[in-house]
Protein backbone atom coordinates (compact mmCIF):
# COMPACT_ATOMS: atom_id res chain seq x y z
CA UNK A 1 0.00 0.00 0.00
CA UNK A 2 1.46 3.30 -1.07
CA UNK A 3 2.19 5.96 1.50
CA UNK A 4 0.40 8.47 -0.69
CA UNK A 5 -2.74 6.34 -0.64
CA UNK A 6 -2.58 6.13 3.13
CA UNK A 7 -2.22 9.89 3.40
CA UNK A 8 -5.14 10.73 1.17
CA UNK A 9 -7.54 7.91 1.98
CA UNK A 10 -6.97 7.07 5.62
CA UNK A 11 -5.45 10.15 7.25
CA UNK A 12 -8.69 12.14 7.30
CA UNK A 13 -10.21 13.84 10.36
CA UNK A 14 -13.30 11.61 10.20
CA UNK A 15 -11.07 8.54 10.47
CA UNK A 16 -9.42 9.51 13.76
CA UNK A 17 -9.86 6.66 16.24
CA UNK A 18 -7.46 7.99 18.84
CA UNK A 19 -6.07 11.37 19.67
CA UNK A 20 -4.90 12.94 22.89
CA UNK A 21 -7.81 14.48 24.75
CA UNK A 22 -8.17 18.27 24.85
CA UNK A 23 -8.36 17.97 28.61
CA UNK A 24 -4.59 17.46 28.50
CA UNK A 25 -3.17 20.99 28.18
CA UNK A 26 -1.35 21.16 24.86
CA UNK A 27 2.18 21.58 26.15
CA UNK A 28 5.16 19.26 26.61
CA UNK A 29 5.04 17.18 29.80
CA UNK A 30 7.89 17.66 32.20
CA UNK A 31 8.13 13.95 33.02
CA UNK A 32 11.08 11.77 32.01
CA UNK A 33 10.83 9.80 28.76
CA UNK A 34 8.78 6.67 29.37
CA UNK A 35 7.38 7.68 32.76
CA UNK A 36 3.95 6.28 33.59
CA UNK A 37 2.73 9.66 34.93
CA UNK A 38 1.97 10.93 31.44
CA UNK A 39 -0.16 7.91 30.61
CA UNK A 40 -1.96 8.00 33.97
CA UNK A 41 -2.72 11.73 33.53
CA UNK A 42 -4.13 11.11 30.08
CA UNK A 43 -6.41 8.24 31.15
CA UNK A 44 -7.73 10.35 34.01
CA UNK A 45 -8.52 13.21 31.65
CA UNK A 46 -10.14 10.89 29.11
CA UNK A 47 -12.52 9.62 31.78
CA UNK A 48 -13.43 13.17 32.85
CA UNK A 49 -13.99 14.19 29.23
CA UNK A 50 -16.11 11.15 28.42
CA UNK A 51 -18.24 11.67 31.52
CA UNK A 52 -18.46 15.38 30.58
CA UNK A 53 -17.78 16.41 34.20
CA UNK A 54 -14.87 18.80 33.71
CA UNK A 55 -16.96 21.74 34.92
CA UNK A 56 -17.63 19.96 38.18
CA UNK A 57 -14.26 18.34 38.81
CA UNK A 58 -11.65 19.62 41.23
CA UNK A 59 -8.27 17.90 41.42
CA UNK A 60 -5.58 18.05 44.09
CA UNK A 61 -1.98 17.48 43.04
CA UNK A 62 0.88 16.44 45.34
CA UNK A 63 4.51 17.25 45.89
CA UNK A 64 6.70 14.91 43.89
CA UNK A 65 7.38 14.54 40.21
CA UNK A 66 3.74 15.36 39.56
CA UNK A 67 3.87 18.63 41.51
CA UNK A 68 3.33 20.26 38.13
CA UNK A 69 0.35 18.06 37.26
CA UNK A 70 -1.81 21.17 37.51
CA UNK A 71 -0.01 22.59 34.48
CA UNK A 72 -1.01 19.58 32.39
CA UNK A 73 -4.56 18.80 33.50
CA UNK A 74 -7.05 21.18 31.94
CA UNK A 75 -9.38 21.32 34.94
CA UNK A 76 -9.40 23.43 38.12
CA UNK A 77 -6.62 22.21 40.38
CA UNK A 78 -5.08 22.85 43.77
CA UNK A 79 -1.46 22.02 44.58
CA UNK A 80 -1.28 20.60 48.09
CA UNK A 81 1.55 20.58 50.58
CA UNK A 82 3.48 17.30 50.68
CA UNK A 83 1.20 14.50 51.83
CA UNK A 84 -1.78 16.68 52.58
CA UNK A 85 -3.88 16.22 49.44
CA UNK A 86 -6.48 13.99 51.16
CA UNK A 87 -7.04 16.74 53.76
CA UNK A 88 -7.64 19.30 51.01
CA UNK A 89 -9.89 16.88 49.17
CA UNK A 90 -11.86 16.17 52.35
CA UNK A 91 -12.73 19.82 52.88
CA UNK A 92 -13.42 20.40 49.20
CA UNK A 93 -15.81 17.45 48.90
CA UNK A 94 -17.59 18.30 52.16
CA UNK A 95 -18.27 21.82 50.92
CA UNK A 96 -18.88 20.95 47.23
CA UNK A 97 -20.63 17.59 47.66
CA UNK A 98 -21.97 17.50 44.10
CA UNK A 99 -18.55 17.99 42.56
CA UNK A 100 -16.10 15.23 41.61
CA UNK A 101 -12.99 15.46 43.73
CA UNK A 102 -9.79 13.47 43.34
CA UNK A 103 -6.24 13.46 44.63
CA UNK A 104 -3.28 12.35 42.55
CA UNK A 105 -0.33 11.34 44.70
CA UNK A 106 3.03 9.55 44.67
CA UNK A 107 4.43 7.02 47.09
CA UNK A 108 6.26 9.48 49.36
CA UNK A 109 3.32 11.85 49.40
CA UNK A 110 0.73 9.21 50.21
CA UNK A 111 2.61 6.64 52.25
CA UNK A 112 5.34 8.55 54.07
CA UNK A 113 4.60 12.11 55.08
CA UNK A 114 0.91 11.84 54.23
CA UNK A 115 0.18 8.55 55.95
CA UNK A 116 -2.10 10.10 58.57
CA UNK A 117 -4.06 12.13 56.05
CA UNK A 118 -4.39 9.09 53.78
CA UNK A 119 -5.60 6.78 56.53
CA UNK A 120 -8.02 9.26 58.06
CA UNK A 121 -9.61 10.31 54.78
CA UNK A 122 -10.05 6.59 54.08
CA UNK A 123 -11.35 5.98 57.58
CA UNK A 124 -13.91 8.76 57.33
CA UNK A 125 -15.00 7.26 54.03
CA UNK A 126 -14.70 10.57 52.17
CA UNK A 127 -16.50 10.32 48.82
CA UNK A 128 -13.39 11.09 46.82
CA UNK A 129 -11.07 9.22 44.47
CA UNK A 130 -7.43 8.78 45.39
CA UNK A 131 -5.04 7.93 42.56
CA UNK A 132 -1.79 6.58 43.94
CA UNK A 133 1.22 6.32 41.62
CA UNK A 134 3.62 3.80 43.14
CA UNK A 135 7.07 3.58 41.56
CA UNK A 136 8.95 2.60 44.69
CA UNK A 137 11.22 5.62 44.68
CA UNK A 138 11.36 9.39 45.21
CA UNK A 139 11.80 10.62 41.66
CA UNK A 140 11.64 14.39 41.95
CA UNK A 141 14.22 14.75 44.68
CA UNK A 142 16.74 12.53 42.93
CA UNK A 143 15.92 8.90 43.54
CA UNK A 144 15.78 8.34 47.30
CA UNK A 145 14.17 5.37 49.01
CA UNK A 146 10.40 5.41 49.34
CA UNK A 147 8.15 3.54 51.77
CA UNK A 148 7.33 1.24 48.86
CA UNK A 149 10.93 0.59 47.76
CA UNK A 150 11.44 -3.19 47.56
CA UNK A 151 13.85 -5.11 49.84
CA UNK A 152 17.29 -5.09 48.29
CA UNK A 153 16.29 -2.35 45.81
CA UNK A 154 18.92 0.32 45.35
CA UNK A 155 18.20 4.01 45.70
CA UNK A 156 20.31 7.04 46.52
CA UNK A 157 19.58 6.57 50.24
CA UNK A 158 19.80 2.79 50.11
CA UNK A 159 22.85 2.51 47.87
CA UNK A 160 23.51 -1.08 48.95
CA UNK A 161 19.87 -2.06 48.62
CA UNK A 162 16.97 -1.61 51.06
CA UNK A 163 18.07 -3.24 54.28
CA UNK A 164 14.91 -4.42 55.99
CA UNK A 165 16.34 -4.74 59.55
CA UNK A 166 17.38 -1.06 59.60
CA UNK A 167 15.05 0.49 57.06
CA UNK A 168 11.87 -1.50 57.54
CA UNK A 169 9.74 -3.47 55.15
CA UNK A 170 8.06 -1.92 52.14
CA UNK A 171 4.68 -0.54 53.18
CA UNK A 172 1.68 -2.07 51.46
CA UNK A 173 -0.43 0.95 52.22
CA UNK A 174 -3.10 -0.10 49.73
CA UNK A 175 -3.79 -3.38 51.50
CA UNK A 176 -3.79 -1.51 54.82
CA UNK A 177 -6.43 1.04 53.87
CA UNK A 178 -8.51 -1.59 52.09
CA UNK A 179 -9.30 -2.96 55.56
CA UNK A 180 -11.12 0.22 56.53
CA UNK A 181 -14.90 0.09 56.23
CA UNK A 182 -15.02 3.63 54.85
CA UNK A 183 -13.19 2.48 51.72
CA UNK A 184 -15.44 1.05 49.00
CA UNK A 185 -13.29 0.23 45.97
CA UNK A 186 -9.59 -0.55 45.90
CA UNK A 187 -7.67 -1.75 42.88
CA UNK A 188 -4.09 -1.96 41.71
CA UNK A 189 -3.33 -1.38 38.04
CA UNK A 190 -0.54 -0.43 35.62
CA UNK A 191 -0.10 1.67 32.48
CA UNK A 192 2.88 0.20 30.66
CA UNK A 193 1.08 -1.93 28.07
CA UNK A 194 -2.06 -1.19 26.08
CA UNK A 195 -4.13 -3.80 27.93
CA UNK A 196 -3.06 -2.46 31.30
CA UNK A 197 -3.84 1.08 30.13
CA UNK A 198 -7.37 0.01 29.12
CA UNK A 199 -7.92 -1.65 32.51
CA UNK A 200 -6.64 1.41 34.37
CA UNK A 201 -8.99 3.64 32.45
CA UNK A 202 -11.91 1.34 33.33
CA UNK A 203 -10.89 1.47 37.00
CA UNK A 204 -10.76 5.27 36.99
CA UNK A 205 -14.13 5.41 35.27
CA UNK A 206 -15.61 3.06 37.85
CA UNK A 207 -14.25 5.17 40.70
CA UNK A 208 -15.69 8.39 39.30
CA UNK A 209 -19.08 6.76 38.64
CA UNK A 210 -19.06 5.54 42.25
CA UNK A 211 -18.53 9.11 43.46
CA UNK A 212 -22.04 9.85 42.25
CA UNK A 213 -23.34 7.19 44.62
CA UNK A 214 -21.57 8.38 47.79
CA UNK A 215 -20.50 4.85 48.69
CA UNK A 216 -17.17 5.82 50.19
CA UNK A 217 -13.60 6.31 49.17
CA UNK A 218 -12.27 4.80 45.93
CA UNK A 219 -8.56 4.10 45.81
CA UNK A 220 -6.64 3.28 42.64
CA UNK A 221 -2.98 2.35 42.92
CA UNK A 222 -1.04 2.47 39.65
CA UNK A 223 2.27 0.63 39.83
CA UNK A 224 4.53 2.57 37.51
CA UNK A 225 8.11 2.66 36.35
CA UNK A 226 10.72 5.25 37.18
CA UNK A 227 13.44 4.63 34.66
CA UNK A 228 15.43 7.64 35.83
CA UNK A 229 15.37 6.65 39.49
CA UNK A 230 15.93 3.00 38.70
CA UNK A 231 18.68 3.92 36.24
CA UNK A 232 17.37 1.97 33.25
CA UNK A 233 15.88 2.69 29.85
CA UNK A 234 12.09 3.01 29.77
CA UNK A 235 11.62 -0.36 28.08
CA UNK A 236 14.05 -2.04 30.51
CA UNK A 237 12.26 -0.41 33.45
CA UNK A 238 8.89 -1.76 32.34
CA UNK A 239 10.40 -5.24 32.17
CA UNK A 240 12.03 -4.81 35.58
CA UNK A 241 8.70 -3.63 36.94
CA UNK A 242 6.95 -6.74 35.63
CA UNK A 243 9.61 -9.02 37.08
CA UNK A 244 10.10 -7.33 40.46
CA UNK A 245 7.32 -4.89 41.38
CA UNK A 246 4.32 -6.94 40.22
CA UNK A 247 5.10 -10.07 42.27
CA UNK A 248 5.17 -7.86 45.39
CA UNK A 249 2.47 -5.35 44.45
CA UNK A 250 0.00 -7.68 42.77
CA UNK A 251 -2.27 -6.20 40.17
CA UNK A 252 -6.00 -6.61 40.32
CA UNK A 253 -9.00 -5.69 42.42
CA UNK A 254 -8.45 -5.70 46.17
CA UNK A 255 -11.86 -4.49 47.35
CA UNK A 256 -15.05 -4.26 45.32
CA UNK A 257 -18.49 -3.13 46.47
CA UNK A 258 -17.12 -2.62 49.94
CA UNK A 259 -15.89 -6.21 50.29
CA UNK A 260 -12.32 -7.45 50.26
CA UNK A 261 -11.52 -9.89 47.47
CA UNK A 262 -10.62 -13.26 49.02
CA UNK A 263 -7.39 -13.66 47.10
CA UNK A 264 -6.18 -10.25 48.21
CA UNK A 265 -6.56 -10.89 51.93
Amino acid sequence: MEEQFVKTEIRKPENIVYKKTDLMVDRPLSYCPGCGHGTAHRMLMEVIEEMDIQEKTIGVSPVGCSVLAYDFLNIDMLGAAHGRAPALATAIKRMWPNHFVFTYQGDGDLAAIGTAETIHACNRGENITIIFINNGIYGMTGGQMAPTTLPGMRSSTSPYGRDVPTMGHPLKITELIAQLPGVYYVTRQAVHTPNHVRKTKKAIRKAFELQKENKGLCFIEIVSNCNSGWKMTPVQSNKWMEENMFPFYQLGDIKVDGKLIEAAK
Partner: protein
Amino acid sequence: MAKIKGDIVINTERCKGCEVCIAACPLTVIAMSKEVNSKGYHFAMKVNNECTGCTNCALVCPDGVITVYRAKVAID
Protein backbone atom coordinates in the same frame (compact mmCIF):
# COMPACT_ATOMS: atom_id res chain seq x y z
CA MET B 1 -13.31 -6.48 -0.99
CA ALA B 2 -12.71 -4.12 1.94
CA LYS B 3 -9.90 -4.10 4.45
CA ILE B 4 -9.27 -2.19 7.65
CA LYS B 5 -6.22 -0.02 7.30
CA GLY B 6 -4.67 2.29 9.84
CA ASP B 7 -2.29 5.20 9.98
CA ILE B 8 -0.43 6.95 12.74
CA VAL B 9 0.84 10.50 12.89
CA ILE B 10 3.55 11.14 15.46
CA ASN B 11 4.28 14.58 16.89
CA THR B 12 8.02 14.15 16.51
CA GLU B 13 8.83 17.33 18.44
CA ARG B 14 7.01 16.07 21.53
CA CYS B 15 8.31 12.49 21.30
CA LYS B 16 10.95 11.73 23.91
CA GLY B 17 12.20 8.53 22.32
CA CYS B 18 11.14 6.22 25.15
CA GLU B 19 10.39 3.38 22.68
CA VAL B 20 7.47 2.02 24.68
CA CYS B 21 5.29 2.36 21.56
CA ILE B 22 7.57 0.02 19.67
CA ALA B 23 7.09 -2.66 22.32
CA ALA B 24 3.32 -2.08 22.22
CA CYS B 25 2.92 -2.37 18.46
CA PRO B 26 1.78 -5.90 17.50
CA LEU B 27 3.43 -5.46 14.12
CA THR B 28 6.63 -3.60 13.23
CA VAL B 29 5.20 -0.29 12.15
CA ILE B 30 7.35 1.92 14.38
CA ALA B 31 11.08 2.38 14.68
CA MET B 32 13.33 5.08 16.08
CA SER B 33 14.68 7.77 13.80
CA LYS B 34 18.33 8.32 13.12
CA GLU B 35 17.86 12.07 13.43
CA VAL B 36 17.05 13.90 16.64
CA ASN B 37 14.34 16.48 17.24
CA SER B 38 15.02 19.98 18.56
CA LYS B 39 15.15 18.63 22.14
CA GLY B 40 17.81 16.12 21.16
CA TYR B 41 15.60 13.02 21.33
CA HIS B 42 15.52 10.33 18.68
CA PHE B 43 11.86 10.08 17.89
CA ALA B 44 9.47 7.35 16.87
CA MET B 45 8.49 7.11 13.22
CA LYS B 46 6.29 5.00 11.04
CA VAL B 47 8.43 2.81 8.80
CA ASN B 48 5.86 0.93 6.71
CA ASN B 49 2.15 0.85 5.85
CA GLU B 50 1.19 -2.25 7.80
CA CYS B 51 -0.63 -0.24 10.47
CA THR B 52 -4.11 -1.54 11.31
CA GLY B 53 -5.08 1.38 13.56
CA CYS B 54 -5.22 -0.80 16.67
CA THR B 55 -4.28 2.27 18.84
CA ASN B 56 -1.94 0.25 21.08
CA CYS B 57 0.93 2.67 20.50
CA ALA B 58 -1.13 5.76 21.20
CA LEU B 59 -2.68 4.30 24.34
CA VAL B 60 0.65 3.54 25.89
CA CYS B 61 2.54 6.69 24.85
CA PRO B 62 3.34 8.64 28.02
CA ASP B 63 3.44 11.91 26.15
CA GLY B 64 0.34 11.32 24.03
CA VAL B 65 2.14 12.18 20.81
CA ILE B 66 0.42 9.68 18.54
CA THR B 67 -2.82 10.23 16.64
CA VAL B 68 -4.33 7.11 15.09
CA TYR B 69 -6.51 6.87 12.00
CA ARG B 70 -8.48 3.88 10.80
CA ALA B 71 -10.70 3.32 7.80
CA LYS B 72 -12.24 0.60 5.70
CA VAL B 73 -10.76 0.79 2.26
CA ALA B 74 -11.61 -1.09 -0.84
CA ILE B 75 -8.87 -3.39 -2.06
CA ASP B 76 -9.05 -4.64 -5.62
